[in-house]
Every structure is written in C-alpha cells, then in structure tokens.
C-alpha cells in the first residue's frame, strides 16, 4: 500500500477484465472479512451471532419473509462476488442459473413425480455440470464481450422458459411443490429463515476458505493481471471455470430453495433485469468483499420495500439512489466505509 488511496484503486482497473484507461494493476490488500485466519473466525462468529439474534428483533412474520429473501439473495451474491470481485469476470446472465435451479427442481417434482428431497440436489448438481459445459467456451470471452455472451445466454434461457409452456407453464409461471424431507414438510417463514441462515453461513464459510486458499491467491493474481498470472504458471482457465461453477451452483441452490419456499416461480426470475439486479447488489455492497455481498443483498432487497411509499415515483427514485451511490461510493458501500473506519481509528490511536 505504498501510495495510499491510489494503490487501492489500482487493483480495480482490470477488474472484470475490462479495458480501462488506467494502466497496470497491483493485487493490493483486499478489504473486508477474512484477511487472516483469526479475522476469518471472528467474522464467521459475528455472522452466526447476527443470524441468531436477528429473529428476536422481528416483530411479525412479514419481517421473516423479507429476511428469507435477503439471505437467499445474499447466497447468490456471495457466489457472484467470487466471480466478479475476485476472479474479475462479469456475468449479466446469472439469473438464468437461479431460475433454472427453481424450474429444474419444480419440473422434476411437479411433472415427473420426483420427491423434492431428491429433485433439489439433483437439479443443483446438474446445473453445476451445465455451468461447467457452458462456462468453458463462454469464459474465453473477455471484458464487454463476456458481458455480451452471458447476457445472451440469460436471454436464451429466459425465452425458452417463457415459450416451453407445456413444461414450464409459460409466461404465467408454475406452482412448485413444498420441500418434503423424510415425511416432514418444510413450511412457514420461521423455519425457512433457519434454513436460509444455515445455507448463508455455510456459503460464507466456503467462500472465506476459498479466498484464503491457494485457489484464492491464484484468482487474485489473475484479477491483478491475467498475463502476469500466466507467466508464473497459474492455469487461469481452470480456476476461472471453477469459480464460475461455484457461483452457478450457489445461484441454483438459492433459486431452488426460493421456489420451494414461495411455492411459485415465473420466467421473470431468469430475466435480464434480475441478472442486473444481482450484479447491482454485488457492486453496491462492494466487490471483493464477503460482507459487501451480504450488505448489498440486504440493502437492495429492502430498498424496493421502502420505496413503495414513493408509489409512481418508485422506479425513478431507485434509479436516482443507484446513480448517487455509485458516484459517492464508487468502490461499494462496505469497502468505502471500512476504509473510513480504519482511517479514523488509525488517527485516534
């Protein structure tokens, strides 16, 4: 961190592999949780405590409903943040994996009579395989062309889900049977809050481990400079693909759970706007930051609920908030606040 604020910015220009006016990049110290093993344990404990304490503050079941939504979105964002923030690969089509997770499990259960405890893991695993197959040619694209390719894949999935109405119920969507494991039906917001909390905590545990592993270091090297990474012998394609598959699996898992929880799914879940919403959550919260993914998911899930007071002006206000945040917090909320915090505590001591 030789040049202060400049060096933190310099790790970003090549992020998402996009061409940029700024020059070479240094993989600088990242912000957020999990910087060291001790920090990681502390962050995981803090998250567990938050997830346990939060429900006691909820006055009614509506809060549980929103909380499930927040946690499930956070799971998707964690995966997407690994891909965008750490591996530097943008995806404008991740909603497709989310929707395929929901539709896959729903179609197997509703149309083919599979038990849901089987249809869910089989679907999620199948989407992992699908992501590996699709990811291999797709990740060859760089920068804006990768954005285009993932966007195209998302549009294709969306249109297929909309048009194959015999399987998917068409534009109106389809009903999804509830999740039943060993004769026990999972129902009710409180129980689903528990499931979502456990899934999120496990995902964070997985993500922090991944980031601190040799894979994570390889990814950061790739993010800094692909060519430099290649020269020191990192097989970039393999790690990019691995992260792509992990992010797709997390999206599919979240999508499948959400479908069984809400009992309904529509093709709009796979749409371009949902994909963009997910990317916004990641960037808004802070790229390359575990807490950023969670905070981004929380704020952008809650914001529309709060903005309903603006009624007709809702879309306009949402757009305005987005523009203002990106102008004043260009690195995302969590990294910007974290830096302010360390600067203040540094000057006080």
């Amino acid at each position, binding site marked *: 961190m030789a040049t202060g604020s400049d060096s933190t910015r310099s790790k970003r220009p090549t992020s998402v592999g996009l061409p940029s006016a700024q020059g070479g990049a240094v993989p600088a110290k990242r912000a957020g949780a999990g910087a060291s093993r001790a920090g990681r344990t502390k962050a995981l404990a803090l998250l567990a405590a938050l997830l346990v304490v939060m429900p006691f503050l909820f006055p009614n079941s509506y809060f549980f409903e929103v909380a499930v939504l927040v946690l499930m979105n956070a799971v998707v964002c964690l995966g997407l943040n690994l891909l965008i923030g750490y591996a530097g690969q943008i995806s404008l089509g991740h909603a497709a994996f989310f929707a395929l997770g929901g539709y896959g499990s729903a179609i197997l259960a509703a149309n083919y009579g599979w038990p849901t405890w089987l249809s869910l893991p089989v679907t999620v695993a199948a989407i992992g395989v699908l992501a590996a197959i699709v990811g291999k040619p797709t990740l060859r694209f760089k920068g804006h062309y990768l954005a285009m390719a993932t966007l*195209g894949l998302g549009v294709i999935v969306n249109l*297929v889900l909309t048009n194959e109405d015999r399987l998917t119920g068409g534009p109106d969507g389809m009903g999804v049977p509830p999740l039943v494991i060993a004769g026990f039906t999972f129902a009710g917001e409180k129980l689903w809050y528990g499931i979502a909390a456990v899934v999120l905590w496990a995902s964070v545990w997985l993500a922090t481990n991944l980031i601190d592993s040799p894979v994570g270091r390889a990814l950061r090297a790739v993010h800094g*400079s692909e060519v430099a990474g290649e020269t020191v012998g990192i097989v970039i394609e393999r790690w990019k693909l691995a992260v792509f598959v992990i992010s797709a699996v997390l999206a599919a898992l979240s999508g499948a759970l959400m479908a069984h929880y809400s009992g309904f799914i529509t093709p709009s879940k796979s749409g371009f706007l949902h994909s963009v919403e997910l990317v916004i959550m990641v*960037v808004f919260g802070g790229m390359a930051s575990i807490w950023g993914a969670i905070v981004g998911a929380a704020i952008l899930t809650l914001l529309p609920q709060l903005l309903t007071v603006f009624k007709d002006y809702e*879309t*306009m206000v949402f757009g305005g908030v987005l*523009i203002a945040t990106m102008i004043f917090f260009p690195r995302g909320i969590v990294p910007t606040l974290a830096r302010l915090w360390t600067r203040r505590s540094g000057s006080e001591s």
Partner: protein
Amino acid sequence: MSGAWLQFVAAGLTAGAIYALIALGFSIIYNTCHAINFAQGEFVMVGGMSGVSFVAMGLPLIVAVPLAVAAAMIVGLLVERLAIEPAHGNDVVTLIIVTIGVSLFLRGLAQVVWGKGIHALPAFSGTEAINFFGATIVPQSLWVIGGTVVAVVLLGLFFNRTLFGKAMQATAQNTLAARLMGIDTRVIMRVSFALAALLGALGGVLTAPITLTSAEIGIMLGLKGFAAAMLGGLGSFGGAVIGGLLLGLIEALGAGFLSSAYKDVIAFVMILVVLFFLPTGLVGARSGDRV
C-alpha cells in the same frame, strides 16, 4: 426470390436500421467515454414519446420530429453532465451500474410524465402499402431505412470532414494524447452523449408509427443495440451498421421461416456463434493481450 423472402428482408432491414442507429450510439460513447451506456435504449423511448407529445400539442410532424430529437439530445447532455461525468474515471463495472441507474431513472420519469400506455405517431407519408415485386411495404419502412442512410452518411462526414469530428476520433484513439493536443475531452464526452441521443431519438421517431412506443420499450431495444454493436465489433462504426442490419435480418428471417416465438433465441445463438469464432466481432480490432 419469392415475395415472402422480400417481405422478410424488408422487415429485417427496417428493424435492423434501428438497431444500427442504437449500436452506433453505443460505439460512439464507448469510444470517447470507455463506457457501455445501458441507457441507450431510453434515448429511443424519449425521442418517440416526446414526438407523440409534440404532435398531441397540435404541432405538425415536420416541427415535432426535430423538437423530439432535440429534447432527447438535451436529456443526453444532462445525463452526461449529472451522472456520467461525476462517475467517470471509476471502475468500468461501476460505470455500467451508473448507466443502468440512468436507464431506470429515465424509464421511471417517463412513466410519471407519459403514463404506462402505448402511443403511436402518425405515419410520415400515408399508410397505403406499396407493392414491390410481390412484397407489401409500408411507406414508413422507407422513411426508416432512408432516414438511417442519411444519418449514417452525415455521421461519416462529421467524423471525417470536420475538425470537431476529427477531435472526437483523436480522443477515441488516445484520450491523453488528445488532451495534450489541446482537445477538451470533457466537451467531447458531452457531444458524444448528445450524438448518441440524437441517433437513438431519430430511430425512436422514425419507428414510432410502425412499432408504436411506450415508456417500457427502452430495455429490449437497448439490449438489441448492444448485441448489434458487439456483433459488428464494439467501437467500430462500420461494424455497428453491419451488426445492426444483420441482427434485424436474422430476426426477421428466423421469425418468418423458423419460429416467431424463438426469433430472439435464434438471433442470440447466432451472435454467440459469431463471437465464438470472431471474439472481437465482425469488424472489430484484432489485438493481443496487453501486459
């Protein structure tokens, strides 16, 4: 060449002309600001909807159309000044999110100003279809194609024959060097947004009599324009025109001969296949990795 073929080609060229105009906007802004402007489709919407408003005020088309385009250019300038300029220099993904914010803001604003209804402009020169070797073509299609040709030719003259156009090209090639030569690149960025808005709004008013217009049309048109720009090669003006026309043709022929429900799937699959073999588009610059 049967009538059906001609019919589909005419429909494809009409749609393709609009995609080309939008794709040109993407490329102009990408070249000078290094940003993908996802609000590009909203310029089409603003153009079409303001045209409808001006006609509703009782203005003749010949006044309403230029006014609508001018309104969109003012919107473009405001967008650049209030949203893009303050965020410029940040990460590319951050800029993309800013333009998505602009797109949402403009769509929300349009919903408030014009409501959520679907509107139409009167056709520029009658609605009597012309029979052309067995294909029926509405006169407005000729306006769309003709208007696009004129716009592209004028744009070419502007970039190659005027000092300001050359300054824009210089900025696109190397912003820093352009600045050292005394070019105010901030002005260039503003003008490029105004130009992109002009092209989009022109597409909006030209097609409004055929495809109708509403506050919601911006998203899909923006995506198609982006796809067309990528197909041709991002940043290349010739590529934007070719990409746009090709996308329109693929869609129209796919819808006509294969499946109208899957016309967009066919188009996007084709684009992915083309990009797989030509990763920088049909006429994009070939470049190696920069260390």
